[in-house]
Structure formats: structure tokens, C-alpha cells
């Protein structure tokens, strides 16, 4: 199976994640689109790891997953604090420095 | 290629039937055991010794009115019990039941549906995703008891998952593989000629700590007493499955018992030697190969004797069942079958012992309060599992 099929899938997922990031208004959905983009990148890494027969790609995916976990934890904590202050999850209402 | 697919489908169908029947009769087993522990009889009237009680319960669940409360999120409300039950049953696919290979339709296949190289990780993956059934059920029911129960239940499951997976690392260090069949094979052999080298008493470092950690985490993971605050009747109505009726509730119920069976299977494979016999396989101890037929023979005689003195319809059924067991016992001593039945017999025996302890613990110990539960999981079990990993790796390194 040519590797380019897997890369096409990865490109589609990344594009969908980018579309979601730009078009959506709920901060948590934006966050989930970022996770979608990270997943697309993981797929590309694994596909290339298989293509070249090396395992460094899988090591990178390991680190990407760990970093995504840390980032999700801190990012969601920030979202909780912001929503407590502004009482809204709509990014268009979080556009002023002062309430 | 097509024949192999067909053989796999046959194995899946047989195993599904076996698992669903076991889950139904596990409920009967628990009710009888709980009753006898409490000095009463338990189900007795529906069929002889209550043996048809699961069928009656199934009919009740199917025929009850199916209520959907107002204001629920329909899609999530419907898929939550589906997710729970599907994941609970799929865990059994990775479990090997015996070493022998059987021939179906001319193809020789092992006694396991999917013998993948990361079998242990696959079962843990299925357990991790099972948290969603509980969380989504609690949230979608649009009720305070459900939401609170669902959040607490899923937080508890996620916390105890950590010590569950960590307590198994000791076994992995000793065996060096994630493949379940290989884990069992490496527990073969006998130290001092008579003590089996199961992981519970294995030579470099007996995994007693690991087993205790695993068992306690498994009870918490399946939301059973004494860790069932989030779904106990006297505490929070019924927790995350308050608003579910008839068959959807049955799916949660069956899912809980199916995950109990999966966890018991995993405990026997990892710590109790899986399908290995506790007797050394020497020529002088060849009579131990007749233990399965002996057990079935005793069961048959007990059923026939009991049936003769039974009042009511059981007079006919129990002796018939006894005769069936007698035929099975005869079958198990024939030369073709006797080698093949050893593995599954010991495996099922050990699972029964583990399930017995499971039910025994439920009806003996009082419940933990939620904060005590979380403190126990994070501050006691998790460091204990870490200690087990450190000690086991020390033992392995010093043994080299």
C-alpha cells in the first residue's frame, strides 16, 4: 500500500482541524480542533516511520502524545478560569483586556 | 482465506454465547452466594434451585416499559449503555483458554480469538474507553443524581486505572512480553518439584503485592462494593443508571458483570497461571488428568440425588441435568478429549475461585465514602504499585 494514501488522510484531517479552529466559536471546540491537528501529525509520523523502516517516527509520536496531554491539562485549566471570570465560552466575548 | 474468516466467526459466535450465558448465570451465582452468606436461600422457586431466574429476569427486562425522560440528550442517552456493554464483552476476545489447538472445518486454530502481541495493552485500552459509558450516561440523563453519580464513578474508574496498570508491570518485568499466551507459558515449571511457578509465588520475586493491588483496583474499576458509592441504592438512588429502564438498564447490568468476568480472566492469566495445572505433569501424577471427569461425575451424582428428593418440577429436570453431566464426565475421560479439556478446566476453575472471592468481598465489607475511596487509591494503592515495580526490577536485575 503506497504510503501517500496515509499522508493524504493525514492532510485531510489536518485541514479539517484547521477549518474547525478558524470557524468555530466555542473555546473547547477550538481546543478539540487543535487535538485533531495533532492526531493528523501523529499519523504522518507513523506513516513515515513505516516507510523508511525506522522507529524514530514512533518515538516522536510518543512524545507528541505526552506533550498533548500536558498541554490539554493546562489549557483546560485556563479555560475553566476564563469561563469563571467572563461567564461565557464564546471567544468573541473574550476580546478585551479589561472586563 | 475465506475458511479462516469463517472459523474465526464460529469461534466468536461460540464465545459470545458462552460469555452472555455466563454473565446471566453469574448473576444467579451471586444471588445464591449472597443469600447463603446471609443465612437465607436466595432464588429457589423459579425453576429448580432458581436456575431459571436469569431467564425470568431477562424476560422482565425485555417486557418492561421503556421510559425516556424529558430533556435528555437523545443520541448520547442511547449510545451510553451500548458503549458500556460492547466494550465489556469485547475484552474476552484476547483471552486464551487453553494451549491446545482444535480443528474446525479442517483448519487448526488456537483456543483464542485474537492472540495479538500487545494483548494485555489491548485489554487495558478497552477498559480505559469503558469510562465513557458511565460518564456520558450520567451526563445525558438530565438529573442531579445521575450527573453526580456519573462524575464520581468515572473519576473513580480513571484513578484506579493507574494502579491497575501499574500493578501489572511486575508481571511484565518477569515475563518480558505483552502476549497473554506467552505470559502463561512462562509461568510453567515447578520450584522444589511441587510448587507451581505461577506469578503469585514466582522465584525471583513473588507478586503478592502486585496481586493484592490488582485485585483491589479491579474491584474499584468495575464499581463493585466496597467501592460502589456512586451507584449504591441507599446513597444516591442508583447513580448514573437512575434514569434508565428495562433493556438499557439490563445492558449496564450485564456490562458490569461482563467486565467482572474479564477482570477475573486477566487475574488468573497474570497471577494464577492461566490454564496451567497446579500439579506437575509427571508420569506418576497422570491421574490428575482425570480430575475434570471426576468433578463432573460428583456434580452429576449430587444433582441426581438432589433431584430425587426435590418437590415439584425439579424432580424431572435435575436428574436430567445430572445425566447430561454424567455423559460429559464420560466424554472428558476419552483419550481424544482428555488432553484438550485440561487447559479450559483449570482456567475456568481458577476464574470461579476469583469470582467467588469477588462476590464474597462485596457482601462482607461496608462501603467506602467517596473521599476515603479517592485517598485510598491515590495515596496508598498507587505508591504500593510503584513499590512493587521497584522491588521486582531490583529482583530481576540481581538475578541476572
Amino acid at each position, binding site marked *: *500500500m503506497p*504510503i*501517500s*494514501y*496515509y499522508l*493524504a488522510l493525514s*492532510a*485531510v*484531517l489536518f485541514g*479539517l*482541524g484547521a*477549518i*474547525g479552529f478558524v*470557524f*468555530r*466559536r*466555542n473555546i*473547547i*471546540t477550538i*481546543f*478539540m480542533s487543535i487535538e485533531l491537528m495533532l*492526531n493528523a501529525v*501523529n*499519523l504522518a509520523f*507513523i506513516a513515515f516511520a*513505516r*516507510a523508511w523502516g525506522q522507529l524514530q517516527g*514512533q518515538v516522536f509520536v*510518543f512524545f507528541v*502524545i*505526552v506533550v*498533548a*496531554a*500536558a498541554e*490539554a*491539562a*493546562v489549557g483546560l*485549566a485556563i*479555560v*475553566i*478560569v476564563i469561563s*469563571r471570570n467572563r*461567564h*461565557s*465560552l*464564546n471567544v468573541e466575548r473574550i476580546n478585551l483586556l479589561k472586563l | *482465506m475465506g475458511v479462516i474468516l469463517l472459523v474465526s466467526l464460529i469461534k466468536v459466535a461460540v464465545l459470545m454465547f458462552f460469555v452472555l450465558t455466563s454473565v446471566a448465570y453469574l448473576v444467579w451465582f451471586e444471588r445464591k452466594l449472597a443469600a447463603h452468606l446471609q443465612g437465607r436461600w436466595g432464588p429457589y422457586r423459579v425453576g429448580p434451585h432458581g436456575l431459571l431466574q436469569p431467564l425470568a429476569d431477562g424476560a422482565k427486562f425485555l417486557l418492561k416499559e421503556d421510559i425516556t425522560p424529558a430533556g435528555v440528550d437523545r443520541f*448520547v442517552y442511547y449510545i451510553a449503555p451500548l458503549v458500556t456493554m460492547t466494550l465489556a464483552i469485547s475484552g474476552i476476545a484476547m483471552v486464551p483458554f487453553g494451549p491446545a489447538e482444535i480443528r474446525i472445518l479442517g483448519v487448526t486454530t488456537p483456543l483464542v480469538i485474537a492472540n495479538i502481541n*500487545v494483548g494485555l495493552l489491548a485489554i*487495558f*485500552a478497552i477498559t*480505559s*474507553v469503558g469510562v*465513557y459509558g458511565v*460518564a*456520558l450516561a450520567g451526563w445525558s440523563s438530565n438529573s442531579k443524581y445521575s*450527573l453526580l453519580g456519573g*462524575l464520581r464513578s*468515572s473519576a473513580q474508574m*480513571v484513578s484506579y486505572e493507574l494502579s491497575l496498570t501499574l500493578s501489572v508491570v511486575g508481571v511484565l518485568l518477569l515475563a518480558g512480553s505483552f502476549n497473554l499466551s506467552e505470559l502463561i507459558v512462562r509461568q510453567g515449571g515447578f520450584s522444589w518439584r511441587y510448587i507451581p511457578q505461577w506469578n503469585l509465588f514466582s522465584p525471583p520475586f513473588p507478586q503478592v503485592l502486585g496481586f493484592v493491588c490488582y485485585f483491589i483496583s479491579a474491584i474499584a474499576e468495575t464499581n463493585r462494593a466496597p467501592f460502589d458509592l456512586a451507584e449504591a441504592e441507599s446513597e444516591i438512588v442508583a447513580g448514573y443508571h437512575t434514569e434508565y429502564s428495562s433493556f438499557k438498564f439490563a445492558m449496564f447490568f450485564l456490562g458490569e458483570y461482563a467486565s467482572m468476568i474479564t477482570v477475573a480472566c486477566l487475574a488468573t492469566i497474570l497471577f494464577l497461571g492461566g490454564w496451567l495445572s497446579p500439579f506437575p505433569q509427571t508420569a506418576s501424577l497422570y491421574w490428575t488428568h482425570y480430575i475434570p471427569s471426576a468433578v463432573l461425575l460428583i456434580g452429576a451424582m449430587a444433582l441426581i440425588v438432589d433431584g430425587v428428593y426435590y418437590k415439584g418440577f425439579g424432580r424431572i429436570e435435575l436428574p436430567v441435568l445430572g445425566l447430561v453431566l454424567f455423559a460429559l464426565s464420560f466424554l472428558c475421560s476419552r483419550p481424544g478429549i482428555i488432553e484438550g479439556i485440561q487447559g479450559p478446566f483449570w482456567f475456568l476453575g481458577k476464574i470461579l475461585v476469583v469470582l467467588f472471592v469477588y462476590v464474597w468481598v462485596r457482601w462482607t465489607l461496608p462501603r467506602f465514602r467517596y473521599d476515603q475511596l479517592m485517598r485510598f487509591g491515590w495515596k496508598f494503592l498507587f505508591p504500593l504499585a510503584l513499590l512493587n515495580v521497584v522491588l521486582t526490577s531490583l529482583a530481576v536485575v540481581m538475578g541476572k
Partner: protein
Amino acid sequence: MTLQMLVFLVLAAVTVAAAVNVVILRHPIHSAIALIVVMVSLAGVFLTLEAEFIAALQIIVYAGAIMVLFVFVIMLLNAGEEERTNMSRMARYVGVPLAIVLLGELAYQVGAATFSMTAQPAANGAIHGLSMLLFQDFVFPFELTSILILIAILGALVLAQRREGVPAKREQQNVS
């Protein structure tokens, strides 16, 4: 159409359909469920690429822990559906078609490119090779990520706790 191609097509179709659902569905919980489906089917794709350990890791860590965090936060914040607004005319008639065209072009160009593949999977199993790499060549980043996780835990704890003396205000229904 080999079996491998068929399996990949089915998994890819499920992944793309779920990813489209993540972006389109209005309630964050439905998007979260769709994202979980994406991750599980991606784990299936990883299995076809002979990365079994990473597939199991993806399900256990990504779909089984990180997404649980997302679902808990959505339930905690009581996030409701996004309000339905008509997009500006520019977005609706120019933006969305352009986005789809861009996506199609990207997929086509990447898919049509030919990469020379040596295609030799790791000899004694991916787990053995992976752990050798992780603990010999990449041991420093490995230890660094454990410190990173510690920092993340502390950060999340400090950020999300309620301050002393501030009475917990009743969270109003979130208008998102």
C-alpha cells in the same frame, strides 16, 4: 482491491466522517464523542502500519485519559450548544468553498506524490525497538517529559482551584 486496501478505506472513511462531525456539530459533547471516534479509528490505522504499541498508547492515553479530561471539563462548565448565527456573506460564499478546494488540493497533491519505500518493519517487534530507542538515544527528552508532566499537573492544580476567601459564585447558565 486487497483486504488491506479495504480495511484502510473503511477506517479512513470512518475517520474523515467523524472529523467532519467534530467540526460541524454544535454541542461540544457531541464534538468530543466524534473526536473519540477519530482517535479510535486512527489507532486502527496505526495497527495497519504495524505500530501496535503506539496504537494501544493512543487509545489508553489519548482517547482514554485526555478526552476524559475534555468531557469532564465540558460537563463541569455546563457548556451548551453554540448559538446558531448566519455566517457573514463573505464566509459563506467565498470562505467555505475555498476551504473545501484547499483541502481537496492538499489531499490530491500529497496523495499523488510517490515516495520510495524501503518498507522493512522492525525485526523483533516494535515494542523492543521502541524501548531501546527511548531508553538509549532519547533518554534525555524522556526524562524531560516527566518534568513537563509534573509542571503541567502543578499548573492545572494552581490555576483551577478556587481562591481562599472568595465565595463560590453560582455559575450562571453559560451563553456560548
